[in-house]
């Protein structure tokens, strides 16, 4: 069996940033296992029309590789190009292994090593495994009667079927989440009719996505500090927006007002306004940004249906109210299986304990990166590290740097393995619960942020606070095992 020191799973923003952090820590023996044939994670998978970032682009790059974007909110293709560029600039190509869909990660108690098995049947033995599979990569399909009985083309937005031409067609779209509000307006531009089935209305703010002027691009290119300034300013704004979600009632009310005013400035029809007004607290689900969503909804050939779907038929959709809709194509914008974290990967730790089972009751990880019972296994974008506002890249970099310096510190002390102490993990969870109490995520609506009412996904404090905590790397949080030889590692 091939042996490596460190195996990273996933080559999205997380996995590649982890590779760069390891390089910087002087750890050069690592591989990056990728399920598909190219890097990019989310930005490779989501090719639906109109796919673009909803975090301001000045924030959406690695701190170690600044980039001048063409737009305030860059489109998918430009982000994917940036990711490819990072691979080349940092020489990560030799570390990448493509078409390696990891199915099992199993700890060998005797050898104190992980066996990483992929769908092609191959196995690799690794001392350390870092999972960076993301939270939003497994398409979620709704449980509706008659799923699969539709005769025409039907696909999920994260697996967009570009061979299907939607021009002049009658298109049904299920869902009104972050993807739908981006692609539905694009579909409405070409389709004969577009019918959108909504379970609950999103809060939407104006995106205002201008091209970055050539002046701005020249300025950012020639004087990189100016972009750093814009980055800092945007980061602080994101923190302020975060306040509303994190518990400041005044900010929350103001945010609600802004979202409703945005909607009402475009939607004038009272009935449609009522449909577009959310019935839950702002921030309980993700706040969305769009400039074309409400503009599309008011078009004559676009309908927003709030009557629940009863079943999918050969020809379309029947609602609870008994209305029959005929479609030529169906698009599922029903999001991702977020709180599963790992599936379809099966992780088995010390003494045969299954992480999937352990996390079935609700995921938890010390600092979002380490779990008791799973030595030398780390996570990027793990439990409680998602953000309701602000850039996830900041979180990923904080995690990658933490893991890299922890591993370096262990190497320096001639240690072979690290397992977070259960006491440390318990204290961390207690802190998460304490800070999640006043947030709107746990206020009761159905969202991918919670499991059994406990916040398992989001970071409940200021974003910068996470960065600060992650700079404090304490080997004493871990139960350790020495290298069996005392030679320099």
């Amino acid at each position, binding site marked *: 069996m091939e042996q490596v020191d460190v195996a990273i799973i996933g080559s999205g923003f997380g996995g590649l940033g982890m590779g760069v952090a390891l390089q910087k820590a002087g750890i050069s023996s690592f591989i990056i296992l990728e399920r598909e044939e190219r890097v990019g994670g989310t930005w490779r998978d989501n090719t639906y029309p109109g796919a673009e970032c909803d975090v301001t682009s000045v924030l959406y790059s690695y701190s170690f590789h600044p980039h001048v974007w063409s737009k305030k909110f860059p489109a998918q293709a430009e982000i994917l190009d940036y990711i490819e560029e990072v691979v080349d600039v940092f020489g990560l190509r030799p570390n990448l292994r493509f078409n390696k869909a990891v199915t099992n990660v199993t700890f060998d108690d005797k050898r104190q090593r992980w066996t990483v098995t992929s769908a092609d049947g191959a196995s690799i033995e690794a001392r350390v495994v870092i999972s960076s599979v993301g939270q939003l990569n497994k398409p979620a399909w709704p449980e509706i009667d008659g799923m699969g009985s539709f005769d025409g083309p039907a696909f999920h937005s994260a697996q967009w079927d570009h061979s299907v031409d939607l021009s002049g067609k009658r298109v049904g779209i299920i869902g009104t989440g972050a993807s739908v509000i981006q692609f539905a307006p694009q579909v409405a531009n070409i389709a004969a009719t577009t019918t959108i089935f909504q379970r609950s209305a999103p809060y939407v703010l104006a995106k205002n996505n201008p091209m970055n002027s050539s002046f701005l691009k020249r300025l950012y290119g020639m004087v990189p500090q100016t972009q750093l300034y814009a980055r800092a300013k945007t980061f602080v704004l994101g923190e302020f927006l975060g306040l509303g979600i994190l518990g400041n009632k005044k900010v929350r009310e103001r945010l609600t007002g802004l979202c409703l005013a945005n909607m009402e400035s475009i939607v004038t029809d009272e009935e449609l306004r009522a449909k577009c007004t959310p019935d839950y607290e702002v921030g309980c689900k993700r706040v969305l940004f769009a400039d074309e969503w409400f503009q599309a909804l008011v078009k004559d050939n676009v309908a927003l249906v709030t009557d629940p779907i009863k079943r999918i038929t050969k020809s379309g959709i029947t609602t609870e109210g008994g209305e029959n809709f005929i479609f030529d194509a169906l698009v599922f914008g029903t999001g991702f299986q977020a709180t599963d974290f790992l599936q379809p990967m099966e992780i088995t730790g010390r003494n045969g304990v299954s992480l999937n089972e352990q996390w079935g009751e609700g995921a938890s990880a010390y600092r979002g990166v380490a779990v008791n019972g799973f030595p030398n296994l780390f996570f990027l974008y793990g439990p409680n590290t998602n953000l309701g506002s602000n850039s996830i890249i900041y979180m990923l970099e904080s995690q990658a740097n933490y893991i890299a310096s922890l591993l370096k*510190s262990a190497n*320096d*002390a*001639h*240690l072979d393995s690290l397992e977070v*102490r259960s*006491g440390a993990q318990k204290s961390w969870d207690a802190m998460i619960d304490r800070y999640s109490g006043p947030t709107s995520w746990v206020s009761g609506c159905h969202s991918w942020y919670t499991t059994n009412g406990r916040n398992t996904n989001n970071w409940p404090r200021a974003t910068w606070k996470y960065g600060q905590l992650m700079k404090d790397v*304490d*080997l*004493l*949080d*871990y*139960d*350790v*095992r*020495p290298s*069996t030889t*005392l030679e320099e590692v």
Partner: protein
Amino acid sequence: MAPSVPPAVVKNAAKLIKRHVLNPGFSWEKQRSRMDKAMASARPPKAVTMTSRTMAGIPVEELTPKDSPPKATVIHVHGGGFTVGSPASSRLWAAALSSALNLRVLSPDYSLAPEHQFPSGLTQVGAILHDVLEEVGPENVVLSGDSAGANLALVATLERARSHSSLPAALVLISPWLDLTVDRLDDPGLVRRDPLLNPEWLAACAVAYAPGQLDDGRVSPLLGSLDGLPPVLVQGGSDDILAPDATRFVNTASSMTTVSYSVGAGMWHDFALQVGMLAAADSAFTVTKEFVAEHLGLADE
């Protein structure tokens, strides 16, 4: 217990002790009196009562929480190369443990070498361990030790295991000295990094303690069998001159019993005792506290 002293200052204090106290050029008397002076300021916190007692004919320092009756007992054996030191050497740590978990902590003031050579200190620790186990029951006792004291604690436990006598619920070994035959000069990098211990001093202590018997398994337990131990927590520093002993112990004992091991990055010999002064010592203390609570059935304290 927020540490108020920067690590560099505590490290410098360790260097001063290396030069002016634990110096093989000084007589044992001079080292002992200087050590006592250095430790004179180590008064236990107000929440703890300190009593001098005698158990099995041996002087013992007893720390008990002031406000409530103790829930269980920890016996802590102090370090000092078998030749110097007293319960005062680890008093701050012992008092913190007593007050954090409501425990009685007993520190034997065992007889020192070279006046009292092997096995006299070991016999004394063994006698106190025996009496306490009989008095309160093995499930209510954790035995701990630092440096040479960890050696005595480990060997006393192994002796009981060998004779199939009752054992303490768990063992805590802080920067343990477990092989007296090793010439520490063989690892010059480590010698350079550890601010507290001098390899010549260790060699002098070894000879003072057990002349001609250094390879006896009861003097250097790493050379004997480690079979039959209760769960063990080992703590050390990556710059601890005795780190290799901890490493060897963990590698061997892990297959025989439950071993927890924690290492302070860039930390030196016995750093874990500097509770309240050193952030890393506070982290290490949290580990000890959780370990002791778990094995004395005091979880959720």
